[in-house]
């Protein structure tokens, strides 16, 4: 199965695999996810959604719905104040407040099927549904546009009549659906291509895919008469929910208290608000708590998927495999409002490699689809699919081993990226070598199977975190942080706290506090929690240790410098050695009342220095020549993970990310019909990988510690979704001899390609 890293002997807890603190709650059904919260007297809120991909709202008549017995409140865009044209961060993405208020509730126009146009709160779900049917919306249906290439055409239907392309060269003269043009350049690609022995140029497309978290969005809001609001919600960032609700409802953040529920998956998709502002407004209008949940259909149609894109790649190399010039153009779906992850897609495209001449252009393009949201390493899998496929073509053409070709070009410490950053200590070379030496790569490919390889890069994120550590009367410790635990982060935070404090892991209780009980925390996203919030936890514990040492100094009547902290105890140092018996946390806690009262530590930081991560995946698969069905037979994910704090959960990130990437490569796609309506808004037709589709996912954890973190942590959650798209496509190309440029490589598409390539049989 997996290859655990050797536990670093200098640590007692880091690198061990204890049970997670919330384990029992999660296996007994006790853990409360958002839809599990209820309040006495609550109403059920429901959203009326647009049946049209693009239409002007001429009028909305809610009078009949309001008159229905049991209906307590109805809201439309009139209930939300207009917002200024300002960009604010939303998780790993940037959003414009003017657009956010239009996305939660359509104003002048509906811009995609599923766009919210009104919401009701009623005493039960049946009445709420009846009420929706009584709302009359008068639409003027407009021509729509779904795909990027069509949306970029000069005569395409315009979503936003005043949208001028930012960064266009020359400046845009007329509005269009191209919200932005960005460019990254390094060296001189024309000169590079001129000297190249081989130049390969290809076009690729990928489709929109959904994060597919199993827990639909849900929220419960309770507004009281004094203006205070409480919200329980499933989110990757409850501080973000508070911030957005305050802005969208003209409230102060201190009036809103958000408690995050356990979160049933997010992968970036739960960093934005959809239901929360509506539930708050409905609660304010009705004077009752309002609960809202999305159906799976709503989740697909109306929450933010990851974009599809058109990507053009051109790579020039010398005969020995050295890449001398590389270009990439990415035109990416933003959905109904500007703001696709085209930036990171461009920046990550060639970040794995040390190339002198690089030129990258990105376009952010709106079309009549739901506004995209972050999905694990937003944007990177898309550009990487195109680049890594082209590199595989290069390897085939040069008859080089695909890992050797990548080693020849691998980024290393000191490599300057096309987006301007010079790498510090990174593990791209180590990861390639680890993949090459993995049991998988060293085993010959089984007959009938073929092998594909691809690499991937993600920056990882730091940002704002707060944490506190409190000592109880008995000497046990509560560690408080403010990031929802989406995949076992409580365990990794408790492990770091135990290591710092020198006490047992089970003497530490990690707790995730609501927005009123801990300082601000940026979202759980960008692979930042174990890194950045981990650092806040470490610092809060160090603050606590300072306090504890002070208490011991006071007890002994010595200077604080005369005390050291070791193995969970204050011990006399220097000239005091041997004078006093060590004091445990429990002893210090017992006398806290006499030494200065409660013993607490806290820390708040803006964390920089996130260490980038690199991954290399190996995929063996077979293609059924008749059906086009792909069977993945063996799969390995190698990655530089910094230090694996809890290796099981690090492996889990690699395995889960790899499987999402395999789904993206093989089956997943948003399919629109001619009316611009989503044709597959359910798990039956939007098929995510199931257990019987897969082999075990082998992992190779390469530990290249991040020098900026006390325990060497790097984010690990984003990278593993990047390489699978090309690893799968490269294996398919080597298996069938047919290179597929358009994802997904679904059975109908693949069998059609196989049929087309088959020599025509003589008619009998």
């Amino acid at each position, binding site marked *: *199965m997996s290859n655990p890293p050797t536990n670093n002997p200098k640590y007692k807890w880091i690198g061990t*695999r204890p*049970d*997670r603190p*919330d*384990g*029992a709650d*999660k*296996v*007994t*059904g*006790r*853990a*409360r*996810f958002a*839809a*599990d919260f209820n309040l006495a007297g609550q109403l059920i809120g429901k959203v009326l959604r647009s049946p049209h991909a693009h239409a002007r709202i001429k009028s909305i008549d809610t009078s009949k719905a309001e008159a229905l017995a049991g209906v307590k409140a109805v809201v439309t865009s009139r209930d939300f104040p207009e917002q200024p044209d300002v960009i604010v961060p939303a998780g790993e993405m940037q959003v414009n407040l003017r657009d956010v208020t239009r996305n939660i509730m359509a104003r002048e126009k509906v811009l995609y099927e599923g766009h919210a146009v009104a919401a009701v709160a009623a005493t039960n779900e049946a009445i709420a549904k009846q009420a929706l049917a009584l709302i009359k919306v008068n639409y003027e249906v407009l021509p729509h546009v779904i795909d990027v290439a069509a949306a970029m055409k000069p005569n395409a239907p315009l979503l936003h009549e005043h949208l001028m392309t930012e960064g266009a060269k020359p400046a845009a003269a007329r509005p269009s659906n191209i919200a932005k043009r960005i460019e990254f350049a390094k060296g001189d690609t024309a000169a590079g291509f001129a000297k190249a022995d081989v130049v390969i140029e290809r076009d690729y497309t990928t489709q929109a895919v959904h*994060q*597919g*978290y*199993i*827990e*639909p969005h849900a929220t419960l809001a309770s507004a009281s008469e004094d203006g205070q609001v409480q919200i329980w919600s499933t989110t990757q960032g409850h501080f973000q929910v508070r911030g957005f609700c305050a802005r969208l409802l003209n409230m102060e953040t201190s009036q809103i208290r958000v408690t995050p529920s*356990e*979160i*049933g*998956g*997010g*992968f970036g998709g739960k960093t934005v608000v959809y239901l929360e502002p509506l539930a708050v407004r409905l609660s304010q209008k009705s004077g009752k708590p309002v609960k809202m*949940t999305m*159906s*799976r259909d709503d989740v697909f149609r109306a929450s933010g998927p990851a974009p599809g894109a058109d990507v053009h790649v051109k790579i020039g190399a010398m005969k020995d495999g050295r890449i001398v010039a590389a270009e990439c153009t990415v035109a990416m779906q933003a959905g109904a409002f500007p703001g696709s992850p085209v930036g990171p897609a461009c920046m990550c495209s060639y970040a794995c490699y040390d190339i002198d001449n690089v030129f990258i252009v990105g376009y952010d393009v709106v079309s009549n689809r739901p506004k995209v949201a972050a999905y694990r390493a937003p944007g990177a899998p898309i550009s990487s699919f195109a680049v890594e496929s082209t590199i595989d073509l290069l390897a085939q053409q040069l008859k080089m081993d695909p890992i050797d070709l990548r080693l020849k070009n691998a980024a290393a410490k000191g490599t300057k990226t096309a987006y301007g950053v010079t790498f510090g200590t990174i593990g791209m070379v180590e990861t390639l070598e680890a993949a090459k030496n993995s049991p998988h790569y060293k085993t010959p490919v089984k007959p009938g199977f073929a092998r594909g390889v691809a690499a991937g890069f993600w920056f990882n994120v730091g940002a704002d975190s707060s944490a506190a550590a409190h000592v109880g009367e008995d000497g046990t410790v509560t560690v408080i942080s403010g990031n929802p635990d*989406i*995949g*076992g982060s409580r365990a990794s935070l408790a492990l770091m706290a135990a290591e710092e404090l020198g006490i047992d892991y089970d003497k530490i209780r990690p707790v995730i506090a609501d927005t009123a009980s801990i300082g601000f925390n940026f979202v759980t996203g960008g692979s930042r929690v174990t890194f950045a919030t981990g650092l806040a936890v470490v610092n809060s514990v160090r603050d606590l240790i300072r306090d504890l040492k002070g208490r011991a100094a006071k007890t002994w009547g010595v200077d604080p410098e005369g005390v050291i902290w070791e193995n969970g105890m204050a011990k006399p140092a220097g000239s005091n050695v041997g004078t006093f018996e060590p004091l445990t946390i429990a002893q210090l806690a017992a006398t806290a009342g006499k030494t200065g009262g409660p013993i607490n530590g806290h820390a708040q930081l803006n964390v920089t220095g996130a260490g980038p991560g690199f991954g290399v995946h190996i995929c063996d698969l077979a293609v059924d020549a008749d059906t086009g069905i792909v069977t993945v037979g063996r799969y390995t994910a190698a990655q530089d993970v910094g230090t694996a704090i*809890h290796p*099981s*959960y690090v*492996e*889990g*990130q690699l*395995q*889960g*990310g*790899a*499987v*999402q990437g395999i789904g993206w490569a093989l089956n997943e796609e948003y399919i629109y019909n001619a009316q611009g309506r989503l044709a597959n808004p*359910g*798990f*039956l037709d939007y098929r*995510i*990988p*199931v*257990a*019987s*589709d*897969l082999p*075990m*996912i082998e992992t190779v954890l390469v530990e290249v510690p991040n020098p900026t973190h006390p325990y060497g942590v790097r984010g690990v959650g984003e990278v593993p979704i990047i390489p699978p798209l090309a690893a799968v496509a490269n294996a398919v190309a080597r298996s069938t001899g047919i290179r597929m440029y358009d994802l997904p490589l679904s059975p109908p598409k693949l069998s059609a390609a196989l049929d087309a390539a088959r020599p025509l049989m003589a008619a009998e």
Partner: protein
Amino acid sequence: MAKIHVETTINGAPTEFLCEANQTLLDVLRDQLGLTGSKEGCGSGDCGACSVTVDGRLVCSCLVLAPEAQGAKVETIEGMAQGDKLHPLQKKFVEMAALQCGICTPGFLIASRALLERNNNPTETEIRYWLAGNLCRCTGYDKIIHAVMEVAAEMRESAK
């Protein structure tokens, strides 16, 4: 229309409830009986998060009408641990990190128990096909399959 009166047994306890003819068992469990351990991931039988057993048969409770519980024995995740003792599958899932977010976990545990009650010596492939109706988006299934294989091995060992 008058509500339907249903008498059933849930996790061994005789239970009565009133429901509409078109209400699902999942809705009654979650909204009326407060048994929120069974989750709704899709409401259409495609994700398995709502898995329960009815008279020992593994079903998606979102596809079972509540009146069908009349006279039946329903087992949900809330009945899996005995007192303060976790079921071996529950213990192993935690021990082997077979969950990340945990929303799919109740469904996987109920489905895995139903498998092991029938067959305590399943192959990896049999486990993968048995659990193919349960979606997990976080783990890639690897650690779930390993945990079930391990518990099966322990069951065989203790049956010796």
